[in-house]
């Protein structure tokens, strides 16, 4: 059964041009079913926070969206492409349109901030001129520098990433993501390893970028106040599936904390 056929059963909301539509997504690690039939639909331009206890499947869900983790079952449609049916080359082309920001920044610490940002151009072009900023074309260098300036690190372009603070490194990762010119942003706990101020700066930056370019933003977060403040919608993961799906405007930290307590107690 192809992914397109499977999509016949998806809800009307997902079928009507959603940026992200997930149907019956399942993923197990050994005997443990982390995702046991997840259905989610996210509209274009929407900012969604995924919350849940450790091991609830939020990050696995996010990784499945770009197939960094291969799902066991189900269909995923993103930006009008059935991701679960893509071959190697098409998957690479699809990934080039999705900006992913990781919790651990995932930069090359020995290289400069500018070179790390230049790497983002590999979503559009390849070859030796994308490996180091010194080899890159003037246009690419210029765009990469503009991306660094957009995150407030233009003056640190030639500084090694290993010598930057956690917050600055995460901003470089965001700049690399901007270099991709993405149509969708996925962020896996981008604020987790940062102090409160730096965490807020990163979340504000991601939301600003998403709003400016009308991009869909999906963020995994453990900081409940961030989930409420920086998203339109909050989806709670638990028990292998979606436990609740609510408007961020209607959510309160107390209510979300109660959800966590119940999940941990369970």
């Amino acid at each position: 059964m192809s992914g397109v056929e499977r999509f016949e059963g998806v809800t009307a909301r997902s079928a009507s041009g959603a940026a992200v539509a997930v149907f019956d997504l399942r993923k197990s690690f050994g005997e443990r079913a982390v995702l046991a039939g997840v259905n989610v639909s996210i509209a274009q331009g929407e900012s969604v926070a995924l919350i849940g206890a450790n091991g609830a499947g939020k990050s696995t869900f996010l990784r499945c969206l770009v197939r960094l983790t291969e799902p066991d079952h189900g269909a995923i449609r993103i930006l009008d492409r059935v991701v679960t049916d893509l071959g190697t080359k098409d998957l690479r082309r699809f990934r080039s349109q999705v900006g992913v920001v990781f919790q651990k920044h995932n930069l090359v610490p020995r290289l400069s901030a500018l070179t790390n940002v230049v790497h983002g151009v590999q979503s559009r072009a390849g070859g030796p001129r994308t490996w180091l900023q010194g080899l890159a074309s003037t246009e690419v260098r210029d765009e990469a520098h503009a991306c660094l300036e957009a995150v407030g690190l233009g003056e640190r372009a030639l500084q090694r990433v290993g010598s930057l603070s956690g917050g600055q490194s995460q901003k470089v990762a965001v700049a690399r993501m901007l270099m991709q010119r993405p149509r969708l942003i996925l962020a896996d706990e981008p604020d987790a390893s940062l102090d409160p101020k730096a965490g807020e700066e990163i979340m504000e930056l991601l939301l600003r970028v998403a709003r400016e370019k009308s991009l869909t933003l999906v963020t995994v977060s453990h900081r409940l106040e961030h989930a409420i403040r920086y998203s339109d919608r909050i989806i709670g993961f638990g028990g292998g599936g979606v436990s609740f799906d609510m408007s961020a405007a209607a959510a309160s930290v107390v209510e979300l904390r109660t959800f966590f307590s119940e999940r941990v107690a369970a």
Partner: protein
Amino acid sequence: MTSSTVRPGLPPRHAAPNVVSVALWCAAVAFVMWSFAGAGLSLERLERGIPALGNMLSRMFPPDTERLPQILSSLLVTFQMAVAGCVLGVVLAFPVAVLAADNLSPHPAVKAAARGLIALFRTVPDLVWALLFVIAVGLGPPAGILAIMVDKIGFAGRFFAEAMEEADKGPREALEALGATRTGVVFSAILPECLPSFVATSLFALEKAVRGSVILGLVGAGGIGVELKVAFDLFDYDTAATIIIAVFLLVLAVEQVSDRIRRCLI
């Protein structure tokens, strides 16, 4: 703490050996004794050998420097041979290592073939490779260069592959997530991450090549080894002493320089 205050249930410091471990120890001792007996090393032979060694050493000193210009010229050829063979080996080891690395190899069969090649090049001694290349390309330094090259593909290939397997998978995953090709991932994430390790391995390979190239001359693969063999064949021990001292100084110099480069780069 007195013995009276020791908590009950404290485990003993040493477990009593069981029958199996005693038997294994006895077998190990028997194996070592069998090895000595098979090798024919005896006190009687040592007693006979020590005066002969003393006699040879007395004839070595003072070293004869009459042929110093020829010796230095051969030493230079040896060094050039080592550098050329080492550079070729290290450069060729890189693609072989990429194919042999768990996380980068495109296919299990390719990985098995690359690992098999590395194992073959590494386990067969360089002296054997030199004998083969002397037959193939004739007497002289070219055979030595090829022997060193093959040996270094095995040596560096193994360590390069291990370094790439141990590299932080974060930067690699980030580039895969943005749609980079395998080559892009290798040159943008893996290579910069592993560069210090590659430099250290390459310098060790050079040290090993300089030491090894001396021996290669004994089988006709060029360099100072030929001079050393001729000196010993003619019982010209004082000239041999000059050669040994020259080799010692060269190896020492290479080790010192490579040690400094390693400290600067890492």
